């Protein structure tokens, strides 16, 4: 596969660029039609908008006329994702650290349990979790949603951390202990700072899952006051059928936060997704 850039590579490059343009064409349609009026989007779906029509975005963000609140949904998605990440990183890293520093049969057994937990789909536990949360009044709340994701994503988080803790040399911890640092200080000041890479991967994988997840948020939040981006998108698309300019403005608003994050961290994101999954 080692070769120089030749005429043949140039030709190859042109072909793959053409294929990529076709692959990405839905994004072109999404953007241009979100800036048209409903009429123009139907009359001229492929062309650029005659003039930029910002009204759809204004309607989606203010909620006027579309009976939806995307600013609120953005906020709820953000709180739920951030809260879940905080719980997952805090408790997942502790559990993994404990397991890795007590090698033995019990730890190996628990580790296998966490690995199995990643693969088995969690739909089966959704109804019991729903009734349990309902009995304590946490259905339709941000805290309830955070608890659901903390339970669901814990195995993956523990799995990711355990591998890294196992291969972490213990010299620094020992030095800290000898210097008289307690467990909490050793863990937060000495151990976790060495875990930046895997913390990044855990943050990324979990935030992608939670931010993009539809089923749980629809099940636990639809009909409530706390609505997230997927829930809001669904209700808007069912109410605004065929008003594609509005639908697309809402789609763009809900996709933008992750896309912006991606633009700034793309290489890191791709590397850690590929690397983290290899284990």
């Amino acid at each position, binding site marked *: 596969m080692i070769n120089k*850039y030749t005429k043949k590579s140039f030709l190859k490059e042109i072909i793959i660029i053409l294929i990529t343009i076709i692959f990405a064409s839905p994004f072109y349609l999404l953007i241009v039609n979100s800036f048209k009026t409903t009429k123009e989007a139907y009359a001229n779906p492929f062309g650029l908008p005659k003039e930029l029509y910002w009204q759809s975005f204004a309607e989606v963000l203010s909620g006027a006329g579309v009976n939806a609140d995307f600013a609120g949904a953005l906020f709820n998605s953000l709180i739920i994702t951030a809260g879940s990440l905080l719980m997952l990183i805090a408790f997942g890293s502790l559990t993994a650290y404990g397991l890795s520093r007590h090698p033995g049969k019990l730890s190996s057994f628990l580790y296998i349990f966490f690995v199995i937990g990643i693969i088995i789909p969690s739909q*089966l536990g959704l109804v019991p979790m729903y009734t349990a949360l309902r009995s304590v009044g946490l259905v339709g709340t941000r805290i309830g949603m955070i608890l659901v994701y903390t*339970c669901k994503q814990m195995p993956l988080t523990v799995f990711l951390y355990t591998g890294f803790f196992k291969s972490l040399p213990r010299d620094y911890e020992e030095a800290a202990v000898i210097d008289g640092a307690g467990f909490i200080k050793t863990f937060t000041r000495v151990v976790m700072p060495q875990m930046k890479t895997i913390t990044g991967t855990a943050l990324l994988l979990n935030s992608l899952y939670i931010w993009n997840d539809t089923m749980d948020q629809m099940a636990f939040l639809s009909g409530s006051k706390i609505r997230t981006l997927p829930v809001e998108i669904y209700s808007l698309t069912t109410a605004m059928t065929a008003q594609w300019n509005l639908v697309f403005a809402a789609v763009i608003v809900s996709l933008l936060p992750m896309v912006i994050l991606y633009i700034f961290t793309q290489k890191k994101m791709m590397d850690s997704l590929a690397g983290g999954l290899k284990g």
Partner: protein
Amino acid sequence: MKTGIKTRSRQKKVGARVPWIIVIPGLVFALIGHVIAPLQGAFYAFTDFKGIGEYNMIGFDNFKEIFATKTDLYALLNTLKLAIPFIIFVNVFGLLLALVLYNKLKTKNILKSIYFVPAIMIPLAVTQVWKYILDYDGPLNIILRSVGLESWCKNWLGDPKTGLFCIFFVMLWQNCGYAMIIYNAGLASISEDLYEAAAIDGVTTWTKFRYITLPLLAPSLTVVITLMTVTGLRVFDQVLGLTGGGPVGLTQTLASDFYKQTWTLNRYGYGTALALILTLLVSIVGVLQSSILSKREGKMS
């Protein structure tokens, strides 16, 4: 030998300073989400639980009804019809993209980024663009009409056969970049020396691929297959976004049928019976795959 004993006792010392109790919160969350709740769910699958009030044990009645109801049976069949080709083609396209973009191309990084973008997007949201493209008055039919293929125009999402294919296609579009990234990392870990040696021996591109690239990609193959199996069998967002399971429930999948029965129709017991079937399906496929793949991986490397 001596150092071995020394490290061991040192390990023990640090181990003693790390209290066991820190394991508990994470473990409790995982146990609730992945043992207690699913077990209770499995129990509900044998009841007529409606979400509130009393419920009765009804044995296998839910399962009997599932296998006697056309739409539920379709949900099971559709799940397989979607997942099996999806797992195959997402691997093929992911690998092809990774191989093509592994060439020395000037725009390779930006191309990679573009292929990966759909994978980070809220599936339900990005699916709306496809719903528009495939709409009867949408761009696809407009293009067909303009090139004189008017007779090919149809309501793509309104016909169960083409609707299911559209769901499959959108799943592929969204996930092939993900597969590409994992294969790409696998390719990057293969030493250039092997290809240089092969070049000296004058072997063909196909031989290089078959005897160097493919065997060394075995670990990536395992990751992609495992990941995409779960994605494929659990498909929900694309169904909800494109066809909503319609027309008349003929494009439902197990996950979307589970959602509809449980949260739209409040048939919690019946819904969890569907979820139990899905769980068993994923578990069986998962166990089979991991035993086959780990054997194969061992052989190839």
